[in-house]
Structure formats: C-alpha cells, structure tokens
C-alpha cells in the first residue's frame, strides 16, 4: 500500500514502527511521513497509516483529527501561522493577522488561489517573549510588526524559498526575541510540516 512512498520514507516507516514498544505509537510520526508523501493528511494517507499500524482507518482518522497540525485538506506551500493567544494578542497580533490577510488577499483559514500561501491563526506558539510571533511551516519569526509581516508575505511570494529557515526570516523581518537564539540553525522546513529529520521533513545543510 505504501509502495508509492519514496524508498527513504518506506525505510523510515519501518524504523518508526520499530522505535516504539507498541506499533500504535508510530501513528503520529507516520502521519507526518504520509503527509509529506501526499502533501497533506489525505484519506489515502490515513488508510496507509492504518495499514502500517494495524488500526482501522476510522481509528487513524480519530487520532489525526484530534491534532490541529495534521491538515486534512490541502494547504499552501507556505503555511503562515499567526499566534493570536494572550501574549501575542497583548502585543498587537490581531493587527499582524489583518496585515497578512490584506497582503495575501485571503482570510484566516484560507489558501491563496495559486496554492502558495495558507494563513491561519493559532493558539500560543511558545514565543510569547517575542510577541507577536508568526511561523512559516512551523519555523518561527518573532517580534513581527504589521509592515514587516507584509514584507514577509511578499518575500514568500517572490523569492519562493525552497527551504524555510527561521534565522533568515528573523534577520529579514523579525524584532524582539523570546531569548537569544544563539548559533545559526542548519536545518529548515521543506513543506508545511514540522521540519524534523527522523520524519524526513527537514531540509538544509544537515
């Protein structure tokens, strides 16, 4: 069933299944791998994960639909998530969201017609010290003012980076940080999924 997966991902699936004392534990990582294969957590993706873990598709759907990061509809190449929880709200997150909606021409929860950008508001991103915070494909940029948020969108649209690096965005558009980010990060996101090498979702220098 997963034989259309890339051979690395098939290998990864095997490893993930072995990584836990019980196969079922691999459902969440496998959903990420499947989402990378399908572009999102499609019905086929859930069916494949069910096949791999010995669950029913309904059980996999039950798990997948619990978590907001498993997108069960296609999302844009860049998923722009604007934190609007309390600390970001206090520091003007709503204006950032509005600026992004205005710049992209779409509303919270939508994807641009060219499939490039999706915009959503999210609950606390863990960047409260650098509020307001935004993430692109789950890579953060902190201290983002509305005008910089517009620049960020333009950059995504025009430069179309193939790997998203938080450091790069922070340098170009960011402001106040939650803490000193330290050295440059070498891996970034290659899709609208958290960039994590064991799941095959990270790119960059490694």
């Amino acid at each position, binding site marked *: 069933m997963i034989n259309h997966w890339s051979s690395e991902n098939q290998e990864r699936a095997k490893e993930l299944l072995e990584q836990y004392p019980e196969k079922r534990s691999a459902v969440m990582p496998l959903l990420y791998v499947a989402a990378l294969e399908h572009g999102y957590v499609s019905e086929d993706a*859930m069916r494949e994960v069910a096949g791999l873990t010995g669950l*029913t*598709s*309904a059980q996999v*759907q*039950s798990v997948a*639909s*619990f*978590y907001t990061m498993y997108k069960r509809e296609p999302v844009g190449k860049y998923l722009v998530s604007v934190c609007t929880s309390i600390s970001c709200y206090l520091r003007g997150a709503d204006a950032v969201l509005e600026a992004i909606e205005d710049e992209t021409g779409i509303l919270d929860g939508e994807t641009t017609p060219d499939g490039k950008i999706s915009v959503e508001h999210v609950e606390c991103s863990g960047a409260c010290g650098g509020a307001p915070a935004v993430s692109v494909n789950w890579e953060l940029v902190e201290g983002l003012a509305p005008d910089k948020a517009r620049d960020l969108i333009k950059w995504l649209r025009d430069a179309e980076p193939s790997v998203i690096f938080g450091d790069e965005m922070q340098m170009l558009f960011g402001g106040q940080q939650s803490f000193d980010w330290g050295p440059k990060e070498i891996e970034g996101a290659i899709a609208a999924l958290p960039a994590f090498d064991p799941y095959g979702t990270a790119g960059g220098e490694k």
Partner: protein
Amino acid sequence: MAEERATVTINLDGVDIQVESGQALIDAAELAGTYIPRFCYHPRLKPVGLCRACLVEVEGPRGTALVPSCTTPVGEGMIVHTQSETVKKAQEGVLEFLLINHPLDCPVCDKGGECPLQDQAYAFGAGETRFVEEKRHYEKPIEISDLILLDRERCILCGRCTRFSDEVSGDPLIEFKDRGNYVQVMTFPDEPFASYFSGNTVQICPVGALTAKPYRFKARPWDIDGVESVSLVDAVHSKISVQTSHNEIVRIYGIDNDATNHGWLSDKDRFIFNYGQSEDRLTTPLIKEDGEFKEATWAEAITLVSERLGSFDADKVAGIGGARSTNEDAYVFSKFLRSVVGTPHLDAQIGDGLNAAFAAAVTPRAEINDLETVKTILLWGPDLKEELPVLYLRVRRAATELGANLVIFHPRRTGLDGVATHTFQYKPGTGPDVLRKLVAGDGEYAEARRTLGEGPVLALVGRTGLTEDPDLAEAVAAFALDLPDARIMPLMRRGNVFGALDMGVTPALLPGRVAIDDEAGRTALEEHWGPLPDGAGLDTTGILEGLASGQLSALVLNGADPIRDYPTPSTAAAALDVAEFVVSFEMFMSDSAAYADVIFPVVGLGEVEGTATNLEGRVQKVNRIVLPAGMSRPVWSILNDLAATMGTEFDAASVEAVGAEITSVAPAYGGVAWDRLSWGDDKEGLVLPGPDGTQPLEYTPIDRSVPVASGHRVLHTARVLYDDGVMMRHSPGISGLASRGAAYLHPRDASVLAVTEGDEIDITVDGEVRLPVVIDPSLVEGTVYVPFNLAATAGLGAVGTLRIDAVRGGDD
C-alpha cells in the same frame, strides 16, 4: 455464577448500607434504591467517567469532593452525598450543558418517550434555556451502514457506541473525530459501520443519535408491548425482548443476562424478525395436485397426511429436522415418529453436525460463563464470529478483558485471531495429524501445548467446516479432557439443535439424553409412549440414501431443507425426488419443500411458546407475543392432530402440558419448571446436569482423510453469518447483507491456476458453481475456501471430487 465478594459499609445520604466491595458507587447506590443519573456509564463497558452526569460528593481527608460515581469504587467507611445542593447543582449544570446543543426534536425522534436525556430534562431541567447562541449543526441523519443511521446533532458524545465497537466487538469502525466543541462520532469515508454487532450501539445509545433502519418510525415507545424470550438464530440462545406494536414485531432488544449474552446480540439476532411479516410466509396448508400446490383446509391436509403415512410400513417412514423447533415441538416430533408411526429413523442434524451422544452428553460440559474464569481456551471449531457471534463476543472478552490464553485451530483466519495467543491454520484432512503433533508438543506446537497446560482450560470443539471429519472434534475433546481442570463445550450452530437431540430427534438417543441401547431407560420410556421400534435407526445420511435406494418411502421434514444444508445436495434432491410421499412443516417455500406433497404452515419468532436448550445445555423459555401468521400452527399441535387421526390421542393438549410431560419422561429434564424459568430462580435458564460417571471419552488418534480431495487441493467450506438461509432470505432488513460469494485461494494456488483477484473460476464438488476469486494468504496452500449456502454457492456441496477450472475470456 459470580463469586461471593466481601462487603463494606458505606454511608449513603446519612444511612449506613452494606455493599459489595469494589463495586462502582453508581451501582451500589442503585441497588440501595438511589438512582444516580448517567449517560456514558454502561455496566458492560469499562467506566470512563466522561459525561459527568453522575457526579456525587464524597467526603475525603482533604474535604468533600465531587466525583463521578461510575468510576469510583466503594470503600469501607465512605461517606457519600447524592442529594446535597452542590450535587444537585452540578448534575443540573451537566444536564444544561448537554442540552444547549441538543435539538428539540423529541416529537419526531425514535428515542422520544424512552430517552434518559428527555426524562432528566423533565425531572431536573430549568425549563427555559439560558443559551442564546447558535446550536451546533450537522447534516441530519447520515447512513453509516446499511442498517444504521447517525444523527450527530442528537449525539451527547457519551462514547458508548465507540467503546462498544472497540472494546466489545473488536471492530472499531465508528470513532470520535475532531476535538473539543467539534467532537463528533464518525466512520471513515467509504468505510461503513459494517459490523455484525452494529445494532447493539443503537440499543445502548442513550439518545436518538443512532437509529436502526428496520425500526425507524415503526412505532412509538408508548404503544410498544414486549415479552422476554430467547433468540433461536443460533445455539447460544441470547436473551431477547421481542417488542411489538399492533400485533407486529417491530424491534428485538438484547436483555442483559450474565449467563449468555450480557445484553448483546448479533445483527442477525436483532434484525431477522421481519421474516414474520413477509409476504412469502406460508399461511395455509398446501397440497400438491398434478405438480401444483393448492391451498387446503387443515382437515384436508391432516387427513391426507395421516392416511398416507399410515399406508407405509412403519420403518419405511423417516423424519428429518427439529433444530428450528422448540423442545416441545421436537419432543412431539420424536414421539410421533417413534410411537405413532413407529419408525426409528429420525435426525435433527443434516449431515453437518457432530456425533449426537457426544454433543448432548459430553462431560464435564462447560458453561459459557466458565469463560469468565478460565485461564486457557482451546478453540478448534467454527469461526465463532460467523457461526456463533455472541459466543465470539464472550470468548473475545475472555481473551482481552480477562486475559485468558486463546489457542485457535482452523483452516484459515478467524474473527478471533487478532486476540489469540496462538493460531494455527491447517489443511482440512490433516487435522488428525495436527492433533497428534499437538498432543506430543512437537516443533511448532510446543509452545501452544505448554500454554494449554495452564488450567483451568475450556475447550470449544466443533467442526471447522463441512469438510471436516466429525470425529476430529471428539478426538480434540478427548485430548482436551486430559488438560488441567478442563471442560468441553461442543459447538453446533443451528437454533435449537441441542434441544432436538435432547428430545431424541436422533437415532442414537431417546428423550433426556438416554442412549438408545440403555435398556432401563428404554423400558421407562415405553411406559409412557408404548412400544418403541426395534433396531438402530438411520441418520440423515442413511435416510437420504435409503429414500434414493427405495429402502424408505416417505419423509417428514420438520423445518429442514436438506437440499441446501446436506453436504451432497444432489443426494438430497435425488432422495426427495424419488420419495413416494413427503410432508414438510415450513414457514416458507424452500428448495426441499418444493418436493413435498403436503406442506403444513408453522409458526415462527414471537408466535411460538415453549422451551429451548442451548449449547451449554441451558434450558430457557421461548415466549409468544403475536398471533400466528394466517392459519399457521405450532408443530406439536399439528402432530397431535395427526396422531389422533392415526388413532393415538396424546394426553398433552397444550404446549404447557407437553412441557410437563417432558419433565416426567426425559430424565435430564426432571427439574425444569416453566414458572421458574419465566420469573423464578431459573430466569437465567437452567443448566441440566450432565450424565454421572467418568469421562466418556478417551483420546484415540483418528486417522482418516477428509471427504474431499483431489490432487493436492482440498475444499474448506463453512457457514457465514449472512447466508442464504430461509429466514435470512425473507428478512428484508438484512437479506441484502448476504455475501455474494467467492472462492478463496492461496496466492500460490492462484498463480498456479493463473488467476488473480476478481477473475472467475468454475468449481465442482457435488455440483458446479462459478465464483470470483479472492486471494487469501491465511489459507494453507492447497486449500480452497468457499462459503457454504450463499445464493451463489448453493448446490456446490461439500463432498465429492474437487475440480477447479479457470474461466478464460473469449478474447484470448
């Protein structure tokens, strides 16, 4: 029976009461007369405490706390308040929360009138809603299977249905989806809630979110009547409530019974009732004239049959059937044939069962409830999910909840493999060899053999399919009896087959499990029945062969359809064809009834009263609630009239009197009393004691090959739940669920035959059928599996020479 538990004293609303230690507070309170509201709690599901309707206050070291009474076990000295202001406010708060998003469609809801949410809203509700926002909206009822509709707006998210499917039936096809305020119950797209047990979720849904199509809008709870009875769909005899409206059965509910079904039913038990009102029901006696059936009066039919049966030598007449009857009907059938007609040839099995003496009298015989306490289960028999689904639930529970070991032998995968400790697939015919190796603990069987050494052991033995040698089951049982604290449960599927054997509808036994060669028993029976025929009678195989050879002349069919059920349908058809006279007691025209000269229409579910005996030997009451269809009558009363016309008046002039006669005539049935079964101590049924004495079985390795072999391929054929049986066929609610039939091949056999999944092949055994191929890696190479008695597999039979021909398209 549950063991005695220690008691503790708790203080409930100021009163000290004694309760069973470890019990859930909600149950303890209920037993003491205090009902605490609940939605998610169900006594047969693990408590999860999520609806929060059952909050009560319990005093603890750090003050009083609200706790869900469903998840709180009672403990010595516990002080509980169920009526305090805090409790009332919390309970009313939960109710209000449940109602804010609940539609106000009680008047059109199937559950209206029997809905706990509605009841509580009336009892406690504030009356006026404080919720001015928009309610949650979902698409109104969606079909989640051929039987079940789901209305998510009505759902209160108690999780009973999802937990039942996951925990109890093991087919989690219906699950919570999404989160928080958006949680809903859902199936997966294009994967319907196709479970053999789906109807249970409708029954336990506390609101009208899940409804069953066969019941929908049929009746309102307040004009429903009901009676307790047992389901005769299979030999488990699940306890049911037969519910009617205006003399029509509209619904079957499971009744919670510790002994058998725990309240659960298979969908076949639950939804088969529609056959009662089928247009095709036979409602008048029919007499064949010039090859055509003509309606007749009862008097005409009875006169004709009595004359014809009386015209043959007694031992040229035979009877087949009785497994669909009550014990009373079977008893009178046996009595009529043996004492009025005077023939020893009668059999309730149709060549597909077990040795009667073994099935009826093996000892020590297990009870279903032994599954609650055994350590190890050996299952060498049918796929329980297909043939005895409620027993499947009980075994599944033992293997999951209760941690029993489960060792399964079967020709292919079964519904229980997923929860088994060891599973073995073998080629039909090699069973004796496999058993020999198991006994010796050889090689791959060593570990299973060790597991089987952990007692107490319960051995469920029966035929894995129709090509299985019936003696194998006995050999397995004999082996199992040497295991620690072992008990045996013989498995057969058909409705009341165990009752019919107990009533002597078999050449080997007289009523009450008396062996035919037991002189004392025989003499005792003759005092009631008069002289009995000499000599050993013929079983179904002998009868059919006797008819075909002319040794026998006439046949009485009692709810039997040998052309469909006998392993060589051609033999059955030939026998019926040449028989001089055939009379059939039937509800529907069947392949076999078509050969009859006279057909007597008989009563069915809800129309018949009596008792029935299940596979543990448990006798329970079968009850009547609707009038018989048309002029149909119970078998016993038709036979009474026949006997009288033939010159023998039976004493028992009512079914109750027949029941009383059984208790005085059939030794094992001595303790059965109807009033005790109906409302006395034996409400859960009475398990009849087995014969005294030592183990009747010894392990003797048998060495015979299966009936079917050809080259290196053999046939495995077994029944599935939804088949093309006569009642299934006439139950519109579920008839559409019958499988279309296929031939299952091991991948390597398929490749040798150069076919792939979906290709068609012709298979010949007794007859020939054309079936699509399904690839089934769970088979042992060389085994071909075909489900028995589907519309598409009828006539194939189980005995004969197996031939397989790939169907080649015309183009290549």
